[in-house]
């Protein structure tokens, strides 16, 4: 069994984790085009390189980030998303009359 190091819980079997996709910068959902939003939600770069990815530890409900080389599957580092995200992201939206 592969072992992944969870920043909160320590080393755990890979079967306890769920892959969450590449880390990408979210466009402003209020102003971006449909194409930009689809690119953010659905399309991946799939580069053969070190990629920062979201991973989820299922048993603790904890999302974290991992730097993984997608060719060798070597995980270089895992870290708490608090290193990159300092503030809660609020999704303000205006009601549109129906």
């Amino acid at each position: 069994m592969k072992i992944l190091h969870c920043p909160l819980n320590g080393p755990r079997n890979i079967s306890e984790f769920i892959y969450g996709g590449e880390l990408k910068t979210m466009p402003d959902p209020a102003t971006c085009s449909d194409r930009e939003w689809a690119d953010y939600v659905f399309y991946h770069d799939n580069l053969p390189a070190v990629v920062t990815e979201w991973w989820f530890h299922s048993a603790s409900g904890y999302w974290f980030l991992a730097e993984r080389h997608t060719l060798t599957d070597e995980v270089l580092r895992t870290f708490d998303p608090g290193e990159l995200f300092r503030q809660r992201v609020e999704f303000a939206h205006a009601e549109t009359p129906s």
Partner: protein
Amino acid sequence: MTTQNATTGLSRPPLNGLHAERPRVEWKQLGDAEIPARFSGPTDEGFRLDHCGLADLSALPRFGLRGPQAAAALAERGYRLPDEPNRCRIQDDGSRLARLSSTEYLLLGSLTDAGQRVSMTAQDWATLPPGCYSLPRQDSHAWLVLTGASTARVMAKLCGVDLDAAAFPAGHIAQTSVARIDAIVIRDALGELPCLHLLVDSASAAYLWPALLDAMQEFDGGPLGLDALLSPAAA
């Protein structure tokens, strides 16, 4: 013999239906629910308590809180907080406060007061202070407790994390997979008696309870009722 249906208006912990199928189960009220008082004779259960027993504490109150102000809100209520994530601290009244991440906490009611303090705290926080979010655990999670000297050896059959007391001392928490079910495992002690609390998805508990009993067979383990947990050996 009373049955779980004898008294109406009580809550129904998730495993009571399974317990009711056992031939000699006797029931007792704990808080607002019934819980098995014993599954077999006191001699058997006394042995299991010391060596390898499994009890269902799902009738006791439990409540989760998270958010940037969760620690301050708990401290204000007089709870003593664990210093770091994945640690659990025993409170003066016997309730347990588990810290599951930097901003998430889980309160477990005490057998001593049938969880009244935790229950009152949860009721008082029907409207939460700013910066706090509630995580109700009463219906989402079943609460099992594995007691006795063989707990770590039983868990070694079901879990990838080393839960031996040397590697996983009292007050430590492992959030991991147990028999393929996500579980919060807390090492604790009832008096001098080592035990592990297991909090698992309540719908999966009907699978985990017999799976644990099966794993316990080679250690002569079996189910325990509330009477054994309240016996002087576990005080």
